């Protein structure tokens, strides 16, 4: 079966407080980056997996996010890309 690599992006839902982004924002201000207006922090996960096809990889990745990688109560996830790895 082919190898795929994928990037998942997990971000906080709109309106959910982001203490991490808030702390980074005020640190950036005190470092003199006055133009920054907001920072929201999320997670990126680079995944390698074996799957029968790209669409199978897609659905596996969604399931992984639903079940573990994202906390869907407060987070949204997106599969940014899935690429088939060409053996070198």
């Amino acid at each position, binding site marked *: 079966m082919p190898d795929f690599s994928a990037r998942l992006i997990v971000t906080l839902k709109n309106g959910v407080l982001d203490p991490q982004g808030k702390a*980074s924002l005020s640190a950036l201000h005190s470092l003199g980056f006055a133009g920054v207006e907001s920072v929201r922090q999320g997670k990126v996960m680079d995944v390698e997996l074996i799957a029968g096809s790209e669409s199978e990889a897609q659905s596996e990745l969604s399931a992984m996010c639903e079940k573990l990688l994202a906390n869907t109560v407060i987070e949204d996830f997106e599969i940014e890309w899935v690429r088939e790895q060409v053996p070198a």
Partner: protein
Amino acid sequence: MSVAVIIFPGSNRDQDMCDAVHHTTGKPAKRVWHAETDLPSDTQAVILPGGFSYGDYLRCGAIAARAAIMRAVVRAAEDGMPVLGVCNGFQILVETGILPGALMRNANLRFVCKTVDLAVESTRSPFLSGFTLGAVWPCPVAHGDGNYIASDDLVKRLEDGDQIAVRYANGTNPNGSVADIAGVTNVRGNVVGMMPHPENVTLPCQPHQTGAHLFEGLLAHAA
């Protein structure tokens, strides 16, 4: 002996550290607010205490490392003044680049608070000069990000340069740190960072008082 303890808004073992300094050196520590730009002129040693300096949401110690007072701390360290970072203080020193390596999430991703065994691997630093080389003593840890990461190369350099200060002993490594490293020094040996909390095994009300050697060593050095 005049010891400055740096206070960040999220420091939470600052009082513990000040109590330990006062108890062992007989003199109250000077609390120095992070927004200051200079250390008190009579400062002989600097301690960065434990806590969550600015929440530690980005990387532990990352924001604190860029605080105003840290320029003065780095200068003092470069001038050879004894500098100790405990837990969050260690993370901050690593983030400033004064100490090598990185501190990441504990291998099991859980915060851990328990007593571990520490082996003294070097007595070169003033802070460790009060211990016998190889001594093993019980000391508590309390952290979520104490997993010391270094390449094989770096570990070798640390070993060769006598820069490993303390290691977790008797299989008590609580966080997955490479080579059981619990604390390191800079090349010169005047700066020490360690995850465990010697200040919590120093006062008479605490279960052990071995941590007092750290401050006693410092006193002897200053004398």
